[in-house]
């Protein structure tokens, strides 16, 4: 079914139903737009699902700003490897 076929029916909807349709279509595009992405040459890219992103916790564990710890670990590792080579 083409857009031109459904457009008259959509235009006949009342204002509230049009708004609901916009919302439904936006969700549909966000969650199942993968086929269209493939057609656009973005094969394999997951659809961006804002509900998934917004409605859940996303912990960040990254130990950033740890240059001193990195130095310490590196020194420890080099000493360990030097000891192993010496044995």
């Amino acid at each position: 079914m083409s857009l031109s076929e459904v457009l008259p029916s959509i235009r006949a909807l009342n204002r509230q139903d049009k708004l609901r349709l916009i919302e439904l279509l936006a969700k549909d595009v966000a969650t199942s737009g993968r086929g269209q992405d493939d057609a656009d040459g973005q094969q394999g890219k997951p659809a961006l699902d804002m509900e998934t992103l917004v409605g859940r916790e996303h912990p960040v564990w990254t130990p950033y700003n740890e240059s001193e710890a990195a130095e310490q670990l590196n020194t420890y590792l080099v000493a360990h490897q030097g000891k192993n080579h010496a044995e």
Partner: protein
Amino acid sequence: MPSERFSYGGRDPLSPSALPFLPATLIGTDAQVPVSALVDSGAAINVLPYDVGLQLGYDWDANAMPISLTGNFAPSEAKALIVKAKVGRFPEVEFAFAWTTRNDIPVILGQVNFFQEFDVRFFGGRREFEIAR
């Protein structure tokens, strides 16, 4: 250079927020422990959760090399630990970990020394990553 490719994993591999988790086996004094380790290019160091260190057979009190953590791990105590690991088909490798008192984290593989041992390429659009050594 031999390479191996992995799919993003974690609790929800198909989620847009899925992360590059690498299956590996850590080899301790008492046991070998399979882990799913987060490959984290933003991490300065490798991090080992407390319980995984215990499962491997290490004794917290016997380990004397403290590591100072200043970033978002700042309140946690940590000690340096060298652990052998088997990753994919690659030869065994030694990882230097900051072994922490925390358990609410995954095994994290960071710049010292995972990224020193392996070249890593991320294919975020395909939810895949590749490591080479």
